[in-house]
C-alpha cells in the first residue's frame, strides 16, 4: 500500500507540473502509461492497427484535457478511463464479434513475442478466443484487474460504478470466462 501512495504522489506532482506548462511532465506521463494503457487497449479490441489508433487518440485527449482536471485526480484511473471509453466507443460502432475473432486469430500469430514462449500457443489462442467471446464489460474488468493490476477502487473509477458493483462484476466475469473457456475447444 505504501508503494501505491508514493505512486499517486508522483502522479499528482506530474499533473501539477503539466499544469504549469512543463512539457517534460507530459513526456514522463506518456512514458509511464504508454505500455500498460496500450496493452489494455489492444486486449480490448485485439487488432494491432486499431489499437494503435485508439492509443494515439487517448494520449492526445490526455494532453488536451489534463490542464482542466482536478489537482488530486487519480491519474492512472483517469487515463484508463479515457482509453476505456474510446474502446467501448469502437466496440459499439463495430459490433461484429465475429470480425473481432477473425482478427484475433490472425493477430495472435503476429504478436507472439519471445517473452511469452513459455505459454503454449494453443492455450494462448484459446484465451484470445475466449476473451473475444465474452461481453466487453467482463473482458474489461478481467484485463484491468488481472493484467493491469488495478485495485477495485481504481476500476470503479474507470468504469464509473461503485466498488461493490465491481466486486460482483469481476466475480461474474470470472464465472463467464470459465464457462466459455470450458465450452471452447
Amino acid at each position, binding site marked *: 500500500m505504501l508503494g501505491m501512495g508514493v505512486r499517486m504522489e508522483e502522479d499528482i506532482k506530474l499533473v501539477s507540473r503539466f499544469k504549469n506548462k512543463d*512539457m517534460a511532465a507530459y513526456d514522463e506521463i506518456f512514458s509511464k502509461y504508454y505500455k500498460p494503457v496500450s496493452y489494455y487497449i*489492444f486486449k480490448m479490441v485485439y487488432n494491432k492497427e486499431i*489499437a494503435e489508433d485508439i492509443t*494515439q487518440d487517448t494520449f*492526445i485527449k490526455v494532453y488536451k484535457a489534463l490542464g482542466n482536471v482536478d489537482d488530486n485526480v487519480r491519474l492512472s484511473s483517469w487515463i484508463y478511463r479515457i482509453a476505456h471509453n474510446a474502446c467501448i466507443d469502437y466496440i459499439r460502432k463495430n459490433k461484429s464479434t465475429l470480425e473481432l475473432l477473425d482478427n484475433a486469430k490472425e493477430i495472435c500469430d503476429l504478436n507472439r513475442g519471445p517473452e511469452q514462449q513459455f505459454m503454449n500457443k494453443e492455450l494462448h489462442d484459446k*484465451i484470445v478466443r475466449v476473451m473475444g467471446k465474452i461481453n466487453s464489460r467482463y473482458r474489461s474488468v478481467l484485463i484491468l*484487474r488481472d493484467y493491469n493490476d488495478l485495485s*477495485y477502487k481504481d476500476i470503479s473509477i474507470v468504469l464509473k460504478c461503485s466498488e461493490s458493483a465491481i466486486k460482483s462484476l*469481476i466475480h461474474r466475469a470470472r464465472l463467464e470466462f470459465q464457462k466459455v473457456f470450458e465450452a471452447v475447444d
Partner: protein
Amino acid sequence: MNCKEYEFLLSIYVDNECSESEKQELEAHLNTCSSCQKRLDQLLLLKGVVRNESIQLKSAEKVKKKVYNKLYLHFFILFAGLVICASLIAVSGGLVQLLLLNSTPVIIKCIFFAGVGLIMVGLVIIMFDIYRNVIRFMKNK
C-alpha cells in the same frame, strides 16, 4: 455462509481485496472444504493465464512521435486559422475604413476603429499563446 457465498468471496480473496475478518473466515472454511479449495486453485490459474498472455506492440518512442506530430498539427491548424482570420479582419477593416472616411461623424469612426483595434489586440494575445505552445512542442521534439 454457504459455499456459493464463499465462492463470491474467493474472487475477492484472490484479488487481495478482502477485509481481515472476511479473510480469516474464508481461510477457516478453506481448511475444511475441498470444493472451495479446488475453486481457489482454478481462480489462481485463471488469473495467471490472463496475466501472462503478453503481446508485442510498437515501441513507445514511435507512437510518442506520432502523438506529438498530431498535436503539433493541431496547434499549427489553429495558428493558421487565426492568421487567416486576422488577415480577413484587417482587409475588411481597410475596406470599411475606405467607405467610412468621408461621410460619417467622427465619433462613430472612433468607436469603430477602437473596436477593430480591440479585436486585433485580442487576436495578437491568442496567437502569442498558441505560438508559445508550438515553440514548446518544437523544443520538446
